[in-house]
């Protein structure tokens, strides 16, 4: 399963929950793979990775500045216990995408951030302006 397949699976699952979902939204010097607004009006960013989870944790620092919740989505059982601990420590959530394309409930629940209001407002307006 490649990164694009992970993105497609997560997008389908989140649309299925009735969330407003966009892909590839500019957030500072990074591009957020998936941005969504959930049914409580919270903004999530989901970074999709086949590997290099440590790098995704590092990248999430930028996303935490703008989103209420930040997740990493990866292939089922791809992560080790250590990485799961690191994800939890970083306050991020973790989603698994199974080989059949279904998406798990969060394996690790993210902490709710206190994003910077200017960054959150910019991200929200970009989501609303995105096709």
């Amino acid at each position, binding site marked *: 399963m490649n990164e694009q397949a992970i993105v497609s699976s997560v997008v389908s699952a989140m649309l299925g929950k009735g969330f407003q979902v966009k892909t590839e939204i*500019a957030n500072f010097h990074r591009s957020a793979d998936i941005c969504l607004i959930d049914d409580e009006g919270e903004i999530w960013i989901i970074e999709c990775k086949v590997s290099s989870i440590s790098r995704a944790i590092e990248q999430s620092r930028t996303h935490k*500045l703008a989103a209420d919740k930040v997740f990493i989505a990866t292939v089922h059982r791809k992560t080790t216990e250590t990485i799961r601990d690191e994800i939890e420590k970083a306050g991020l959530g973790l989603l698994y995408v199974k080989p059949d394309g279904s998406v798990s409930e969060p394996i690790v629940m993210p902490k709710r951030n206190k994003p910077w209001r200017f960054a959150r407002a*910019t991200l929200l307006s970009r989501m609303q302006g995105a096709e």
Partner: protein
Amino acid sequence: MVRHIYQYNTHTERGFFLGPEHHSLYDLIALNGNIVSHTPAGIAAFVSTTGKDFYIDPQTHAFQHSTIHLKRDISDKEKGEPPKYDFKPSVARLARERLGGIFASVIDRDRPISLKAFLSDDNVNNSVIESVCQSIGDFQLKTMVNELDEEAKDLIGDTSKITPQFLVAPYFYLSATKWQDWLKINSACYRKMKLFFRSKPVYFSLVMSKDVLDHHSGEIVSEISSLHPDGILLWIDDHREELLEEEEVQRYVSFLKQLRGVTSDLLNPHGGYLSTLLCHSEAGRLLSGVGHAMNYGEHRPVIPIGGGLPMAHFYFRSVHARLRFADAAAVFVGKNWLETVESYKQNVCKCRQCQELISLKTSAEAAFFAYGESSPITFARRTGAIVRLSYPTPDAKLVATNHYLYNKALEFSDVRSRGFGELVAELKSIYDDLTDDVGDECCSHLIKWHSVLKDFPKFEH
């Protein structure tokens, strides 16, 4: 006197050199040969307006590398054409019309200058050296003057205003493998320039890889000392001072000390705050001047690395480094430094640009956000994936550059007016204050610089 050098790379940067708020911030302008060749009359008008001293970097090393670095992609992307590279017109003009000889051959034959071009039976070919030196010296002295029409000459008046303060001898990059051969060529060029051009000081441009610095600095200094150069321009390839290990800082300082012994004017046109500190009188003025471009980093690679988009950065003077805007924001928001104007001024910055933004915006937070205003840009990766990133708006680029230049000027002012020991001690106190909050990656260079420089009096005297 410590000289603060500004590099002038494009005409869009003109505003940062002129006007009362900028004019007093710098001392010397570094012009690149390409821009002088391409728009000599415009450059002449510019330098005469500034009234500042300047020099022209003839960029002879550019013709020594693979010619791909002198080219641009001229394919029609809209028609889906594959990449098609041709020489940049400005470079072709510089080589063919201004420099001639072996430089024109690079364009005509599409092959870089090799050592063989300078050798005859394994000896340096004097006639080639003479021809190169004559054209490079004439280029620096005469290009602007010769391109002016009578009206422009009347306007400028004294044409000495558009001749450089010193000439730069032809130079080539000292790579890890062929540094000895190229150093011989550079030395031969320097000697000949001194003979040919007696009306101006001639500077030796020392452009070298970090590897050569690490392993051959003694031999380099020994060779240069035999030339008794009027001045030296030092450029170490991609020498990012924030990333140096302690031993590398030590080696850099030792090298400067050795070079200082062979010339009275040692300039680093691509230096950061470490280099600026080394201009201090109590550090023996190891450097006499340091330069930088307009807010895209002090260090510079010899061979341009293609691609990459200019992203918003914020110069955080406490750590003497440019941080990506998001990284700076994460630190400042986390520390609550943006909550009040007082806190912003105390912890982030109180330069002229920050003060102006604070007075214009509704809050300190809004003032800081002005440095990161951006628009999304969309491009396709080689894989075909579409990516969107934030690109700074023109206003954000303008204020971020002003902020950078004001802070750089403050660093030079500190070096001129405060004690060396006090400035070095400050590196450690800032590191101690910030490391837990901003992470070691943002400020570990401060403690490495401190470790070397705190012993400097002992080391030096």
